[in-house]
């Protein structure tokens, strides 16, 4: 179904919070899903998949080890694309000062793309995200997709690389104002978002919230 981007952003934020993320990372996850949907990419679906895997586990333990330019999960397991993506966006300058950054074994790699785009915006540069024969290049508000599109919905990949490139390959797409989301994905996100809702109690009914 066609959804407004505000609907997508709001539901994804609540879903991400319901999935156990702190509010700040939930905001970034939602920004990313919205951005992804505006290019017709399945960001919201991949977010639902990732959140269902997390299933409310504390996210602080998922922060990547960023000591070298090959980032990995501290426990050797799959790397969280949201935690790693946020770390990448926060360290945008490292793409210029230290060169390409490799993520080892990230889950749902598509979710890294929006964070890489944030890095591109921060740097005023063009950033390439590549894994498994798929190359996604973004910059100046546009996106170029090249290669194996079926990899967009990968649940994981051994290696993802992120680097600055120039210039943006053409033809590059501009974002739209709507997102097409499967009803099944919408229902999964809605179920996650429902975890943020406090069950009604007699006390809350009695106190009331005011009219309007």
């Amino acid at each position: 179904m066609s959804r407004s981007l505000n609907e997508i952003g709001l539901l994804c934020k609540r879903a991400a919070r319901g999935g156990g993320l702190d509010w700040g990372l939930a905001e970034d996850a939602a920004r990313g899903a919205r951005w992804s949907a505006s290019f017709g990419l399945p960001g919201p679906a991949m977010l639902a998949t990732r959140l269902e895997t997390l299933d409310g586990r504390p996210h602080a333990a998922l922060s990547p080890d960023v000591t070298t330019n090959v980032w990995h999960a501290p426990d050797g397991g799959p790397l969280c694309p949201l935690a790693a993506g946020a770390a990448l966006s926060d360290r945008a300058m490292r793409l210029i000062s230290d060169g390409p950054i490799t993520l080892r074994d990230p889950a749902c790699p598509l979710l890294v793309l929006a964070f890489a785009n944030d890095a591109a915006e921060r740097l005023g540069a063009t950033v390439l995200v590549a894994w498994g024969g798929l190359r996604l290049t973004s910059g100046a508000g546009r996106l170029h997709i090249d290669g194996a599109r079926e990899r967009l919905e990968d649940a994981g990949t051994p290696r993802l690389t992120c680097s600055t490139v120039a210039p943006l390959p053409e033809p590059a797409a501009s974002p739209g104002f709507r997102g097409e989301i499967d009803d099944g994905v919408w229902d999964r996100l809605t179920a996650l978002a429902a975890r943020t809702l406090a069950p009604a109690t007699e006390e809350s009914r009695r106190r009331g919230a005011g009219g309007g």
Partner: protein
Amino acid sequence: MSAVDTGAVTAHGVQAGARSVDTAVPLREPASVMRLERLGAFHQTRLSFMRVLTRRMRRERWRFTRPVFELDAAGVGHAVYSVITPERTYSLVAFAHDLPAELRSDRVIAEAWDSTFTLFDGVPTAQDIERLARNVPVQEAGRLDATELSLGRANRSVRLWAHVVESLAAGRQPDTDRIEAVGYLMRTTAVYGSGKFGAADRESIADRAELSGPFQIEMLTVYLVRAWVRDLVQHAADAAGGAASVPLDPDIARSIGIGNSTGLGMAPFILNHPVLFDHWIGARETALSRVRGVARVGDAERATFHALLTRSVVSAARWRTEHPLQGPRVARLREDLDSILVRIDGAEHDCLGGDRPWDRLYRWAEANLDMEGQECLVSLMLEPYGELVDDLVDTLACDQDLPAIDGAMPLSAVADIIDEVYGWARSIDWEGRPARARAWYFSAEKLEPRLGERFEEPIEPYEQPLAPGRDAIALQRALASWSPGAPVAELLLRHPEHRHTVRRLQTVACASYAEIRDNTIGATVSPADMLRAKLSFFGAIHFDPRSDRWVRICMYANAPYPEELASGDADTWPYPDLPAPDAGSPA
């Protein structure tokens, strides 16, 4: 003239606020303006969104048509009201329903209404109307598309509706005292905009000049609804009275607005849109600063101010509220307006003579008037100076997207922002229960923001991030164990729980009026202050808090109807006309 820079933080590469003022009188300090007590005393101004719209309608000579009006004898059916602007046409598609009395509720969670409506982008086809007839009447349970710009509903004021219908049907005009006591025939219980339920996102139409200002879609929707409701009540009277029915007197019709009940759902808006709120407040404060900087008052400006002050006295006399806090505040406002009049008129004062008289008047008000009186004076002072301040209308809107975090910002800069913006929060005992007595949350039952008692209800796990002061102080504590030179990215890698607050700090550092400088979760917080602040920017008057959690207002009372825009007062209509000199004398 000297430039006054109001940037909140200038150290460590944090970009200073871009607001510069070309007047020698500085802007009021955010620490004073952004207190809830003051925000909760704001009044409409000439920058208010309803007035921005009606001025534009008149200036651009918008044309209005009613291509569809299909109602049965019971008043059930639909109508289309089209407005033709220089660039585009928009249409209100409105439905009238037969609502059993037991289903009539002001609560946003109701499931049936007297009228439902949407603003359509263009002129709807019969197929569009058929689709909307399946979706608009069920509101949240329906789906809109990118051609719809808003969604809303309204309920009758049962007593006034019946009185107006019965009076007109019997061939006489309704009683003006009864109309004044209520103020509206219908009140909206929700008008949803940007992207809700599938409607078009604001971003998709923000480049249209006529809709680029804040809430112009919602204001246009309500403006058209007011005409629809007037036509609807006439239809009901005509159906009931037949040949005996008379048309509603235009002067009486004009005095009728659209009521609105605003509850907690709207309160978090100004917390969740800090940069937008900064633009609203910044425009108002810049306007005030410019007027305070005026060297001398001309005769025309003096006359305008005097006339609108006198009309404000009438307006305050008509402001009715039974709220235990607002009632006395309105009484004090009446006294304060009288004091201003005495000061203006009194020969010994003539306070509008001499240099920079508005600045002197404002400073006198700060020392002598209640908060309501001070802020009402601010609104009045702007009135004579459209040419000086109306350009600020173009600064009211902004991009509302959340920004990405600047991970390179050193923690010392984060600490500076906390000192600058959240200094007020340091003296609060955040460990104590009173400071954290409440929590904002969404309930599963209502799907609406609510404010609960943290220590009495099991709501804390569901808390929304709407306590910036508490969170900033928590971040400040976390900073103590880090090197001031470390980038904030390092802290966030170990403490993702502060990510929301770091983004907020970086956002409000560049927008001096973005942050409310008060505890939003304390035992004594009154969300009605947040509602009042927002509604004042809409242009509402006669705020009537029904509790600390919801407010009733009236919109567009005394505004010209579409057919009156060219000849009527499209600007200062919020100020009621003075009673005619012979009012009350026998005819």
